[in-house]
């Protein structure tokens, strides 16, 4: 499964890439803001976008909506160092498959969301 990691913190992108790759995911690209994320998704057609909620330009929810409108929309899993409860209903309405707290990130957690 191809993955695009979107986060403005390089250290997280690096950790996430290592972790997901160790669990069999193929990380095809990284983006550090919303605009780059949409552009990369159009170019790379990943199966999954791991999308940080808090980005320097537009927030993750808006990016998720834009991704959903693409011709071949990828599955979107939102992530954040904050808790899910901090975002209320936004996660459900933006078209994302689900939310994984950064500290709980793992291939298994993402797989569980995709199945559901």
């Amino acid at each position, binding site marked *: 499964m191809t993955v695009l990691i979107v986060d403005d913190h390089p*250290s997280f992108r690096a950790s996430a890439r290592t*972790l997901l790759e*160790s669990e069999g995911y193929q990380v095809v690209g990284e983006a550090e803001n919303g605009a780059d994320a949409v552009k990369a998704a159009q170019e790379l057609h990943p199966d999954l976008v791991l999308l940080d909620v808090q980005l320097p330009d537009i927030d993750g929810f808006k990016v998720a909506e834009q991704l959903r409108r693409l011709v071949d929309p990828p599955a979107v899993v939102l992530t954040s160092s*904050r808790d899910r409860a901090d975002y209320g209903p936004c996660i459900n309405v933006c078209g994302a498959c689900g939310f994984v707290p950064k*500290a*709980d*990130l793992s291939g298994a957690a993402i797989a569980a969301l995709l199945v559901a």
Partner: protein
Amino acid sequence: MTPAWRPWLYFGPAALIAGGLAVALTATSDHEQHPGQTIALVLFVSSSFILAGLIGWTRRPWNRTGTLMVAVGFGVLIGVLGEANHPIPFTLGALFGSLFIAAFVHLLLAYPSGRLLSRRARILVGAGYTIAFLAPLAESMFAAREKCKPHACPDNLVLVSHDHAAHVVATTVWTAASVVLFAAVVMLLLGRWRETTPGLRRILRSVYLFGGLSIVLLAIGFVVTPFSGVGAIFVSVALIATFTTVPFIFLAGLLGTAIARGAGVGAIFSSVPERASPGEVQEGLRNALRDETAVVAYWYEEDEHYVDVEGNRLDLPEDTRRRVVTRLDYGDQPVAAIVHDAALLQEPELLEGVANAARIALERDKLLVEVRARAQRYRALLQAMPDLMFRISRDGRYISYNAPNERDLVNGEVVGRLLWDRLPTDLADRVLASGRAALGGDPSVIEYYLDFEDGSRRHYEGRFAASGDDEFLMIVREITERKQQQEELEASRQRIVAAGDAARRKLERNLHDGAQQRLVSLSLSLRLAQNQVAKSPVRAEELLEASREELMQALEELRELARGIHPAVLTDRGLEAALEALAGRAALPVEIDCIPDVELPPPVEAAAYYVVSEALANITKYAGASAVKVTIGQVDGYALVEVVDDGVGGADPGRGSGLSGLSDRVASLNGKLVIDSPPGAGTRIRAEIPLE
């Protein structure tokens, strides 16, 4: 019969009997040349005095003038004993025949009260009675021969000798004594006339004129008689003319009031308009009392003192011989008082009549004068007020105003103008609405501002109160300064709140971007290491080492953040240690000069710490300084914090939020922050914070 009539009971019949005896004695006298004339004269003079005296006595029982007049009348009758043909009454007549002159002097000096009020008068009267007895006695003891016609006089029982020389001496001595006495009496009367009040002068005028003339004529008569028969007759005629007039003048003076009473009371109502002002009532009273100096005083209940017709306070004078106070009370309640000439006490009926008639008018006026006094007090109060005050009618027209400071008048023309002529329409409408609300019993306050021609804008507070049925007061106070302070305070509060919000946002961001990210990475690294433990222990160890470093950095970032929230060292070790820590972390040398063991209240310590902290941050960022000196001191109840650098200067408090945030923090403790930063000459930031 009332006690007042009692004198008639005794002295009426006595006078009739004495008069009858006098007629009998004179008619049968063998040494009286003109019995008819003598009888007529004696009866006329004596009855005039007795009759006038008895009337006066009855009408003024407390006044002895009437009694003295009766005494003079009987004194005249006693003299008629000299007409008797028998030696005893003849001698008695000669001895006591002059007593009536002493009584007359007594009457004159005691007028108008009938009492001798001065020592001089008492001495003169005493001398008068002495001379009136001793002079005839001496003359009788050394009588001249052949005095009586047509027949010889009866025997003189006190005759010592007919020695001519002794007779001349006795006559001369006593004549001289009499003349001196008369002169002294005239002098006394003249002195009194000069000293007396206009009111009393009016009463004394005719009495002194005719009484004094009688005395003068008597004196002349005494001098002339021994030398000139013709002169003596001439003087006698004049004396009789004046002397017989006197009792009627005394009576007129004594009873003048009875005649004047009706006229006086009537005068108040006839000459004073029906709706007279207090001033006109006072004028009417003066006319009625014939006392131009009379003053009406109204009782002012509210302040418990008297006021004059204008409403000014009037303290009633103590009674003196010249001026006295007649109080008009209603029961125990004072109504008014009249301060008048003491002479009016001699006309009690006039005074009482006028006072009674005036009481009603005065009681009515009392209300008016009270209102006037109150109005005057309020006027004084309003004039003393430091505020601008306008009286405005219900329809919005200015009636009057009081402006302690003309600069507060947006337009100098006030009285007669409408609100809308002077104020912006919406303000004029508000003023009128508030004024009418006050008239309806709902006093209110409005705040507004005015733009003046000099370009200034001043804020005012207007208070409203009803000042009549159809007018209200607008009391205006300038509140520009207060308004500015309020606005500054409001802005400062908003900045503090905004600064707090910004600080929290920054903190959350820092936490999120810093420690939180590191902890997330740490979590992921640990998970990776966990995955690798079995497959590649070496890789797992590397990952664990990386995790430990990540954790150390996360801890350091958390410490830094915690310091930013509140420096723990400040709480634990005090200001000096906290400043030392700041200096230690600073990128340039910082010298700290702090009073040892300075004890400041915690909020002041915190403010001082942040002043230094923010100043050092600014210096590091902008000043290009090589050294900084920080001074903490305490002077006159103020904590002083000073940060001086040798950088480029030109710091602008309006530029960043740092300095204005500091300014707000210091201002919240009633302190002030002064920034002195001339371009090229370093920056001096000085905070002064009160310790109380």
